[in-house]
């Protein structure tokens, strides 16, 4: 058997088995335990084999490459420490599974799931103690947290379970994050995250940042091992079924912190802060835990707080460890695992038999179950350190080492002595209290009423643990040999540990006799006073404070979410634009550009033409913008804004750009009409503008500020851009080549239809797609008859057009004139201001005008075609000259020109650019008029529905607003 196989059997087999166990459990019920049992047993045997093969020394790292390209490997470090913990995890795991088989009887549901979680936990736990890479350790570490979450919350019907599960997960996962940060720091300091390489490389204490890495790692360990101030989660985790408490929360998971401290002991124990940090926290925990245990009355709570305190002892032992290594850590750990595991199982058995948890309600169980009494007596004896148990050895050796610590550590040593002696004293008191309170005395009424008997197999696991306490306590040489066998260099002192049943009459023995006597006195006093004072003061109920904080955090997250939702895009627009402005502005002065920037702005300002006409035009544009900001009602804002747009036209004209001017004025017109139509769809109250109120006013100022900042930024950018003429402007090239290459005098047009015709083709395609998209959004509202027109007639809107005959006639006349003009613009576009875009806009405006005169219905009837289709056909026409040359094997969009002599007009230059321009014209006219039609038509029908609509807005958003055929599309 190779070590790889050991890893496979111990870590991965249970992980894989968890699924099938859960599945089989559905049919098997409580018998699922027997399906799960082989896995911890196999893991234990495999690890025992590994332990036998090991024989001391730095263990090998075995594993497999995972992502070779990244150098990520899945390696496991098999040495004394990891195997020792692995044996505990799998051994206790096997016992707990047997125990659970009887504890979780028919009263519980989901047995399969329970054992699956248990296997999942065991696998992650073994992975955590065996992992070589610290990151892998972190992953397994968090997996144990998740498994613990699932197990604590197993009885998820109970509020306490859910609360405890959440608290445990948050505390351990949160501190685990600190550990991750520490791991990352270590990786940075040492250049590797592999434990084997780290340990081989020696201590890190001298490196910079080692203190921070150590503190972060320890934070993770403290959280996991419920050290002060994180001690509060462990008692709440006791809401789990008792086998879980016995396994996770006393024997194994909470020992992970101990494991980590032991693991990094060789790396950090030379650091000045190591003993201070570890010692202070651990011994404080020792005191706090034991005092709280004394003040508790529930059996499991006493055991939980005593676990907290003992974890402090185990961690503190490493804190005071000499640099040469510690000697007896395995003894202390094994001792605690055995007696605490046994006691938890006893507590579970008592609960199973009586459904009682409180020591004060119990009593006289000795007569009911002697066996249980003997097991408890042995475990309690080990806890208080009676000779003949490992507890005695543990206590004596601890005293021996601690009594010399004031010399080595000063005040910390004194704290250690006080904490260890004091907690042992208290431990004696509550050990006796447990045994006496539960087993001796008169049988209480509750016990007599509720006793249900105990299956003997359930008592087997605690008996095995108790037997271990006694056997190893009587024959400590066995233990010493095993400890020497599993010795880890760096962590452990090189000389073999010496364990004897009897060390002779020493100072420690006398001290412990005194401590036991005082403990007895404390217990006696408690008995005399009836433990009336045993109540945890509110100031120590940190768990409640934690819960409240978590709940508040939930509320805070909700608020953040509401803010980050799309409910207020205006706010977010401000944030986005503000961020951009800030990022641009912040960069400038730091880069030492301020001076150059000012110079640039000045140069840019100087480069502008400052004549009266231009300044006047600019002033009107600015006035329009200010009006939009100051005015309240939407239509007024819109008109004010479009004033700016219209006046901008003058600017183009001043700079001799007639094409741009024409386009601008036409686009402005069409847009204005479109948006006015849109505005008409809103209720009048909305159109009047937002109402007052302090918050609204603030919003206005905020938006105004953001807008002004962005405008200023763009102005500066514009000035900087114009401050220096570009070295290589493209404009002159086009002007020079427009006639020779494109055979057209209007450079703007030749760029559109010739030089950059591919872009234009793309643009008009996007336009057509955009039209389809807008239709998708707009054409949802259909009248009852399936057509908007019916609504129009039904509500008596002017479907038939106005009465005035003159208006109709004039409109028709103007329509033809305008379209003739449009065709003229289209024709001359190649050589003079005009072209497809401009002509299309003119034509679209003529249609709008006609619609105003005739009404939408009439216009639709007269036109007999769908403008939307016109746009699509336009695209096809434009694609024709683009694609035709390719058929002839020429480049796409190559142009051909012909001179035709047509009498009486004379010579005509026509060519493929004109065809292309016609396509553009059709697309523009089609899209513009389609949008106007759809908006105008639906708005007429819409008005009447507004009142009804407002009522609808109050209903939930998800409710369909559709009032007719669902999903209807098609032309308007």
């Amino acid at each position, binding site marked *: 058997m190779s070590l790889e196989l050991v890893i496979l059997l111990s870590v991965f087999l249970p992980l894989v088995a968890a699924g099938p166990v859960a599945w089989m459990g559905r049919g098997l019920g409580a018998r699922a335990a027997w399906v799960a049992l082989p896995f911890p047993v196999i893991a234990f045997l495999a690890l025992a084999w590994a332990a036998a093969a090991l024989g001391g020394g730095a263990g090998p790292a075995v594993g497999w490459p995972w992502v070779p*390209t990244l150098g990520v490997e899945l390696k496991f470090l098999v040495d004394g420490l990891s195997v020792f913990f692995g044996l505990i995890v799998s051994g206790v795991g096997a016992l707990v599974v047997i125990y659970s088989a009887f504890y979780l009887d028919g009263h519980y549901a989901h047995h399969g799931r329970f054992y699956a979680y248990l296997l999942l936990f065991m696998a992650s736990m073994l992975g955590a103690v065996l992992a070589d890479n610290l990151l892998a350790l972190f992953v397994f570490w968090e997996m144990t947290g998740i498994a613990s979450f699932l197990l604590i919350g197993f009885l998820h019907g109970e509020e306490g379970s859910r609360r405890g599960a959440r608290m445990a997960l948050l505390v351990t996962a949160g501190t685990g994050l600190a550990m991750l940060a520490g791991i990352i720091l270590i990786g940075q300091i040492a250049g590797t995250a592999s434990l084997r390489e780290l340990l081989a490389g020696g201590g890190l204490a001298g490196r910079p940042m080692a203190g921070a890495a150590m503190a972060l790692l320890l934070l993770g360990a403290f959280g996991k091992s419920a050290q002060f101030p994180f001690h509060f989660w462990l008692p709440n985790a006791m809401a789990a079924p008792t086998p879980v408490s016995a396994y996770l929360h006393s024997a194994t998971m909470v020992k992970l912190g101990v494991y980590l401290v032991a693991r990094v002991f060789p790396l950090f124990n030379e650091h000045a802060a190591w003993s201070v940090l570890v010692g202070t926290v651990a011994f404080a925990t020792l005191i706090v835990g034991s005092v709280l245990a004394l003040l508790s009355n529930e059996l499991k709570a006493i055991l939980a707080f005593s676990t907290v305190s003992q974890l402090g002892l185990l961690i503190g032992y490493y804190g005071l460890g000499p640099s040469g290594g510690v000697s007896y850590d395995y003894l202390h750990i094994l001792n605690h695992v055995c007696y605490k595991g046994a006691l938890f199982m006893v507590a579970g058995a008592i609960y199973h038999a009586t459904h009682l948890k409180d020591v004060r309600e119990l009593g006289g169980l000795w007569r009911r179950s002697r066996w249980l009494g003997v097991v408890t007596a042995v475990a309690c004896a080990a806890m208080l350190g009676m000779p003949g148990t490992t507890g005695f050895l543990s206590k004596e050796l601890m005293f021996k080492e601690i009594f010399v610590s004031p010399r080595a550590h000063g005040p910390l040593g004194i704290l250690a002595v006080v904490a260890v002696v004091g907690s042992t004293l208290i431990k004696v008191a509550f050990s006796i209290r447990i045994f006496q309170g539960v087993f001796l005395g008169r049988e209480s009424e509750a016990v007599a009423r509720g006793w249900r008997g105990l299956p003997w197999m359930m008592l087997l696991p605690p008996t095995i643990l108790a037997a271990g306490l006694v056997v190893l306590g009587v024959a400590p040489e066995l233990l010493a040999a095993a400890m020497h066998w599993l010795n880890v260099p760096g962590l452990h002192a090189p000389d073999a540990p010496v364990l004897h049943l009897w060390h002779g009459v020493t100072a420690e023995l006398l001290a412990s006799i005194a401590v036991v006597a005082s403990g007895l006195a404390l217990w006696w006093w408690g008995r005399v006073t009836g433990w009336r004072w045993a109540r945890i003061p509110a100031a120590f109920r940190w768990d409640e404070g934690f819960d409240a904080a978590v709940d508040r955090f939930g509320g805070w997250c909700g608020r953040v979410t509401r803010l980050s939702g*799309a409910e207020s895009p205006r706010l977010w627009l401000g*944030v986005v634009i503000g961020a951009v402005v800030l990022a641009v502005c912040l*960069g400038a002065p730091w880069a030492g550009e301020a001076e150059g920037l000012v110079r640039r702005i000045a140069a840019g300002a100087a480069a502008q033409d400052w004549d009266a006409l231009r300044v006047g035009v600019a002033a009107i544009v600015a006035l329009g913008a200010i009006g939009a900001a100051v005015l309240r009602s939407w239509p007024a804002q819109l008109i004010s804004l479009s004033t700016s747009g219209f006046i901008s036209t003058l600017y183009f004209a001043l700079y001799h750009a007639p094409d741009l001017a024409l386009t601008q004025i036409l686009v402005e017109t069409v847009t204005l009409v479109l948006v006015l139509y849109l505005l008409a769809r809103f209720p009048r109250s909305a159109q009047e503008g937002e109402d007052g109120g302090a918050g609204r006013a603030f919003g206005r100022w905020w938006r105004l500020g953001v807008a002004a900042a962005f405008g200023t930024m763009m102005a500066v950018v514009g000035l900087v851009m114009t401050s*220096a003429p570009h070295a290589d402007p493209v404009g002159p090239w086009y002007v020079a080549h427009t006639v020779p290459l494109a055979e057209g005098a209007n450079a703007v047009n030749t760029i559109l239809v010739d030089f950059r015709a591919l*872009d234009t083709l793309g643009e008009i395609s996007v336009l057509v797609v955009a039209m389809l998209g807008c239709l998708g*959004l707009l054409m949802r509202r259909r009248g009852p008859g399936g057509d908007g027109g019916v609504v129009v007639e039904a509500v008596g809107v002017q479907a038939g057009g106005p009465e005035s005959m003159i208006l109709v006639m004039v409109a028709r006349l103007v329509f033809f004139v305008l379209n003739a003009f449009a065709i003229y613009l289209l024709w001359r576009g190649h050589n003079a201001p005009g072209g497809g875009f401009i002509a299309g806009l003119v034509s679209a405006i003529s249609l709008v005008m006609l619609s105003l005169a005739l009404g939408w219905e009439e216009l639709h009837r007269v036109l007999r075609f769908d403008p939307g289709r016109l746009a699509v056909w336009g695209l096809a026409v434009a694609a024709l000259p683009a694609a035709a040359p390719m058929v002839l094997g020429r480049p796409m969009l190559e142009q051909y020109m012909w001179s035709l002599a047509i009498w009486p007009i004379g010579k005509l230059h026509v060519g493929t650019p004109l065809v292309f321009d016609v396509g553009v014209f059709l697309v523009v006219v089609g899209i513009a008029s389609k949008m106007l039609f759809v908006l105008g038509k639906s708005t007429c029908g819409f008005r009447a529905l507004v009142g009804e609509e407002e009522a609808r807005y109050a209903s939930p*958003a998800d409710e369909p607003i*559709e009032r007719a055929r*669902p999903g209807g599309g098609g032309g308007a």
Partner: protein
Amino acid sequence: MIVGLSCGMLASSGCTMPWWQIPELCWLLLGTVLLLGGCWGPETLRSRVAGVSAALFGLMLVLALFFWAPGGEAFGGFYRWDGLSILFKRLFLFGGFIASWMMLRSPDGPVAHRVEYVALPWFAVVAMGLMASAGDFAVLFVSLETLTITSYILVSMERDRGTSLEAGVKYLVMGGLSAAFLVYGIALLYGSCGTLRFDEMAGRLPGALAGDMGPVVRAGLLCVMVAVGFKVAAAPFQWWAPDVYQGAPVPITGFLAVASKAAGFAVLLRLLWGPFGGVRDTLAPMVAWLAAASILVGNLGALSQRNLKRLMGYSGIGHAGYLLMGVAAGSAAGVEAVVYYLAGYAVAALVVLGLLGGLVDRLGGAEMRHLNGLAKREPGLAWLMLVGLASLAGLPPLAGFLGKWMVFAAAFQAGLAWLVIVAGVGVVASLYYYLAPVRNMFFESPPPDAPPLELDLPFRTCVSILMGLAIILGIAPGPFMATIGRLLAGL
């Protein structure tokens, strides 16, 4: 024939690619054929148009996976045919394939049989493909706009549902805003560099940024980055995402979450390893901050969500943050990690959204409570969902875990340890909200009058394959990573 010819397999390294080999042309043609065939074709085709579309996507994907070789360019450098674009095009095709497979059994009422619903993803994939291949800002802008417009039609496809329309309008507003930023940015960059070509700009940009025009260049760069930030839904440009994800039909939500996000990252990588390559170190801190903000906003926002689609929206913001970490790392490892992460995210997100899409009508909605007792009603589906959520949460040994690992490692190696810690906070928060639906599925009891969940075999197969991919990518990423490394070698 045209399919075989136009899939780019004949292109060899370093040569000019004939335009007819551009796969986008083939896709465009197929989309058009589907559209026209679905409108006027024989009845047999019209009723099966979604199936035909899915089959064609599958065929294209197979061609893309097995026959494409990088190298060459077309249209005089406007179109780049390199490893990066090939990787992303495969991802887009994959997204389109799964989305159209989901449409096969889309419960979204009459919409499912609308032909444009089926055909538009093709046009979207064409636009994405062009985005990934763009070698010029003009191509980039036009393709980005095409994608945005196509997307909002798709989002608002369920026009009888208020939220769908609302989502469409919000997407439209977002699209307009981001287009404005993009055009502004392009104009400023053009003004200061005098070119729109990526390769030419790469040489001129560092000089321009250092010169007197520095503020202008910086404003331009920022505006372009903002536009990309909108596309990938990074905070603070994320506000549209939750509403759009929730409102859109489920297949489209999946498509957006996977393909559209990937397209955004394709552009980001293309820009940062192309025209902006010389100023990448200037932009990297900004990307890192965006990543941190996205991780926090996305993951903390998701904590209080009760609707699964909305949850995916918020968590998608968080995932964008993790992806940005890889970009911010600025290393080859970071880019590889981003591609791997995207693939892993795509698979897992499609498992969750796919199941949701298949079940939403039977469950009665996409709220968490609708999942109550799914494990009792359909244990298989509940486990599929669990694997998908676990991969999204980044639990080992799934793809999501390895992706996070690689991204974090890349960021860490680039000295962004603080960002890794922020990401750790996000991961813990995400465990909480990804486990919440699990609790509903496994711990709660189903409603008493729950109808049976009928899910046909092809659909189950599809989702199961996706789940298998999530596991295989996580356990044996070797070949996949090798492909990524080979295709990105020249970056």
